[in-house]
């Protein structure tokens, strides 16, 4: 047991150390790019986990908040010259505000109906992005100038490095918030809601408030990630961000690693994102990559719906009690 506890402190520090030096050691643009996308996937899955994992509400609508963050950043950058690395943190507050309003309606429903509503949220945002062309430029999407700071463009070889560090910072903040929430009375309340909402309400938890807050918080980090993403690609269009596929990817990552655990979504991202990149580079020429992704999703849902971390935890517990009883004999 002692060993597991030490590992829980040491492993994150080692991981952070590796991620801090990664872009200095790995100079290949391709692998740097994959790492930025992996960090982003970890942010999104960890953030989704706050409502989807802790509170147990499977939202498939979070792609809407990703896209909204991206559009707000792209628009304010082009219109007012706000630098995305600064503005995204504030604009994501707007995203969280929108999410509170959406959550206030959507969270009146449960189970299947909730999933349906959140799917509809994506379509509403897509429709808005397509039709409010004065701001969003319709189906063409928004382009931003090439990344830089203070009028100086970053050189192409070093282009990915700033994005690596800002995404890493965002990931640290997301995990820290997720950890603090889990330790708090608020987090306990969310887990109580997941286990039995009726009883949670009976013991005096304001379930509606808790759920709506969790929904808003989980949209915040995804909104920030969306802002950074739109600057990273310097391009955003409705079809690509307002897509159930984006939502399902974060849900799949969280479930693969271990839904409701702190580190599960991070683990899931480090498995799934490189795999997804490989699939697209291997089959991207045809639509078959969708089939491969669908196959992975189907496999995870049918054969490991528990996720990796909970299964590992169970294995360690059993192994631990076995060695203990062996030493007692």
């Amino acid at each position, binding site marked *: 047991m002692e060993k597991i506890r030490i590992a829980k402190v040491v492993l994150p520090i080692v991981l952070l150390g590796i991620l801090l030096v990664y872009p200095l050691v790995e100079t290949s643009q391709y692998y740097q790019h994959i790492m930025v996308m992996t960090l982003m996937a970890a942010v999104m899955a960890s953030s989704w986990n706050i409502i989807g994992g802790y509170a147990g509400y499977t939202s498939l609508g979070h792609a809407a908040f990703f896209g909204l963050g991206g559009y707000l950043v792209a628009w304010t950058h082009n219109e007012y010259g706000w630098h995305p690395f600064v503005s995204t943190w504030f604009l994501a507050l707007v995203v969280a505000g929108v999410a509170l309003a959406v959550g206030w309606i959507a969270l009146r429903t449960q189970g299947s109906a909730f999933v349906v509503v959140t799917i509809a949220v994506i379509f509403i945002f897509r429709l808005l992005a397509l039709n409010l062309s004065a701001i969003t430029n319709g189906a063409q999407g928004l382009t931003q100038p090439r990344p830089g700071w203070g009028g100086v463009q970053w050189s192409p070889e070093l282009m990915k490095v700033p994005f690596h560090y800002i995404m890493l910072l965002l990931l640290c903040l997301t995990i820290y918030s997720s950890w603090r929430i889990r330790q708090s009375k608020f987090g306990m309340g969310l887990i109580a809601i997941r286990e039995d909402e009726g009883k949670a309400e009976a013991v005096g938890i304001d379930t509606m408030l808790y759920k709506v807050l969790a929904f808003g918080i989980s949209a915040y980090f995804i909104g920030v990630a969306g802002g950074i993403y739109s600057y990273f690609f310097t391009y955003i269009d409705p079809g690509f961000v307002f897509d159930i596929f984006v939502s399902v990817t974060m849900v799949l990552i969280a479930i693969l690693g271990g839904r409701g655990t702190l580190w599960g979504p991070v683990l899931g991202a480090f498995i799934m994102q490189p795999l997804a990149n490989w699939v697209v580079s291997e089959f991207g020429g045809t639509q078959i990559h969708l089939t491969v992704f669908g*196959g992975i999703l189907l496999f995870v849902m049918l054969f490991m719906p528990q996720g990796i971390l909970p299964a590992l935890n169970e294995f360690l517990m059993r192994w631990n009690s076995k060695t203990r009883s062996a030493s007692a004999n």
Partner: protein
Amino acid sequence: MTIPSFHLFIQTLILGVLVGGVYALMSSGLTLIFGVMRVINVAHGAILILGAFITYVLFQNFQIDPIVSIVITMPLLFGVGWLIQRYILSRIESPEQTSVLVTFALALIMEGILGAIFHTTIRSVKPDYATDAIILASYRFPVTRLMGFASALIVILCLNLILYYTNIGRAIRATMQDPRAAQLVGINVSKISAFAFALGVSTAAAGGSLLSMIYSFNPSSQTDWIAKTLSIIVLGGMGSLPGALVAALILGVMEQLTAIMITLYWSPIVFYFFLFITLIIRPQGLMGEIIREKG
């Protein structure tokens, strides 16, 4: 916003009802599947598009009329549906939670395969009568929509005959009301589920055949159809067949009205607007029961 003339208003109502009939067929299978199994079949849109592509191939290669091809697509996809339920859906434990992701995976698999075969080109099936219309008392009735509406009615009628006048239909309705009690009186619920799912999928196949001549489509248009059909069954009350029919007609008419009064581009918003209003005012939908349990 433009206020239409009386003539245009009636004409729009006619078109709305005709398209609503097809929507009714498309969503009846979805609500049936939910009612029996508590599964939200997100692959419903992909099955519609699959049906449309099969119809397209039959028309291009063998000049088979889209309406006639219903006779082929329905039994074919009935079999596919049976296999999906038997070997995939029956394995999942809590359908309310996971069925959406599992069926979404199936939708992606189908979209990928269709995309690899047919690419992203937008297609439609154009029989000789595609542009014909019957004029009745100065109102236009486009032939494809009229035939689509009539075929949808026939399929829905058959579905109702099966549900209300056969033993297997009685067993399906019993399972919809209470699966455990149905099991207790000797109904093989897993067999009934497989049959109901296959039946639901085959109505989507028929819907797909009709879709192919009324709308243009490509593999990725499946997501638009998920959104539309899901909104219809939420408005009607999830699991309620009559509810889905009424909701489909309402939304068909409202969509057409929005298209002429505001613009065509905004007309899909009608579906989401009604979806949200339903959930705020009457979460159980027009004719459904309140869904309170959480899977």
